[in-house]
């Protein structure tokens, strides 16, 4: 009886961290419906989640290859929420509060904000160094997509 109890405790002790690790290892963005787009002047074809978060929180202004980039945002909606959830790790209010901190302390200007995917694509296509995000189902003619690693 005591042996089976010990075995059960041991199994739980091993399985619980293993299950946790598996959950953490599961890529959250495996079925992401959001795609990151960039102006063709951006030399990189991929971007790390770490660099993407820094770029969209104002902590960085360039990507691998040295291209200076500027983020552009959607005003709101499910694509915006998914992008923040997957890659920034902040709620919309905290995200905007962060940008206000940078703006009013003189550390940055506000990123341009657009109402729709089409407007973002149009702006990114004609603006050197612009990086944005849209729904995977939206057309993104004239811009390149960045693979998020």
């Amino acid at each position, binding site marked *: 009886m005591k042996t089976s109890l010990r075995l059960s405790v041991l199994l739980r002790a091993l399985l619980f961290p293993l299950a946790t690790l598996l959950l953490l290892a599961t890529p959250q963005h495996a079925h992401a419906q959001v795609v990151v787009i960039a102006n063709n002047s951006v030399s990189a074809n991929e971007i*790390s989640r*770490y660099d993407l*978060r*820094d770029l969209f929180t104002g*902590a*960085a*202004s*360039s990507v691998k290859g*040295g291209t*200076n980039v500027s983020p552009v945002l959607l005003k709101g909606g499910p694509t915006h929420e998914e992008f923040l*959830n997957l890659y920034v*790790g*902040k*709620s*919309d*209010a*905290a995200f*905007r*509060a*962060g940008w*206000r*901190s940078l*703006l*009013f*302390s*003189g*550390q*940055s*200007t*506000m990123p*341009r904000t657009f109402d729709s995917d089409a407007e973002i694509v149009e702006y990114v296509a004609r603006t*050197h*160094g612009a990086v944005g995000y849209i729904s995977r189902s939206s057309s993104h003619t004239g811009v390149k997509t960045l693979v998020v690693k």
Partner: protein
Amino acid sequence: MIRSHILPVAGSLALATLLIGHPLQAQSMDDLNLQVHGYATQGFLYTNQNSWNGTDSEGGSAAWTEAVVNLSAQPQEKLRIGIQTRYFLLGDYGNQITLDWAQVDYRVNEHLGFRVGKVKSPLGLLNETQDIDPAHLWALLPQSVYPISSRNSLLSHFGGIVYGAVPLGESFGKLEYRGYGGQRILSSSDGFFQQLRDLGFTLPNGTTGPTLGATLTWHTPISGLKIGASEEYDHETGELVLAGMQGTIENGPFRAPFYYGQYEKKRLMIAGEYERLRLNSTSRFPNLPAFINQIDVRSFYAMSSYKLTRKFTAGAYYSYSMNMKAPVSSSRFQKDWAVSTRYDFNPYLYAKAEQHFIDGTAWGFNASDNPAMQPTARMTILKFGVSF
């Protein structure tokens, strides 16, 4: 008591509201990369006993108003210029329009940038943003480290900043550095001089002197976790007047270290900071021995907030401050428990409600305003803000 000088700010609020309704919202001119932003807040204060920072808070006061206008442009990819002005009123403090900052910023790359002009001082966790009400849950930041009566003096300096970041790889995060230097001016109405004013002294031009400082922040590989340290060196002097007698005051030289950490993950934020301010403030008058006021203030706070819904955030902090060199009394320390809530009606309009349970009178309770000072007080704050 609602003072007549609130009227111009009410006009600013109305203007801000009109701008919100405008389709451009924050006006951005594509060709010049010119942006206009701003915010305005109105606070209401009530203390059950003692009046706070020159307001008549014991009877309820609306004498807490701010309005900020920010103009910035990015004519070239690496160059930004900007200016920000502020109307500030808190009881006996402010009631004037001042220059927050006016600067030219040139960012060579991620690793190196320069900022010159009147620039915000990158000190501690929140110094650069302590005045930006829309960015915080709190109506009032922990007074032990960020006293509002000294805010305008400590917020910025005339001079420059060198800044940048050094990536340490995804396994080790990133190191962000900022070094700064120039001249700091403490205005004659700064809260730091309140005890002197209570004793009948005046400082016609405040104090000025060199300031140097540096901040290192390690953005750890744990997403949302950063820890850092700052140190500032100051040495300020000024003119001191008592009953027609001309004298001088000298603060320092002194160093003030800050240590801090913050963790942000989705809806949760946890932060803490420690500061030590140790200096001698020396007053000299002709034919009299110098009077040295020794100050050794050790302060810290711990705070946490959680976003309960998309529009509603709640949090609490504990703020502690003790002047180890002051005589034993309730004016040498302050312990403050604060419970705060914020509701965002939309991306531009918000309201805050905050309750403070204060033990000790070290910050905000002036002897001249409180002839029958009580050692404890409870303070209720309501605040409304608009930003665009």
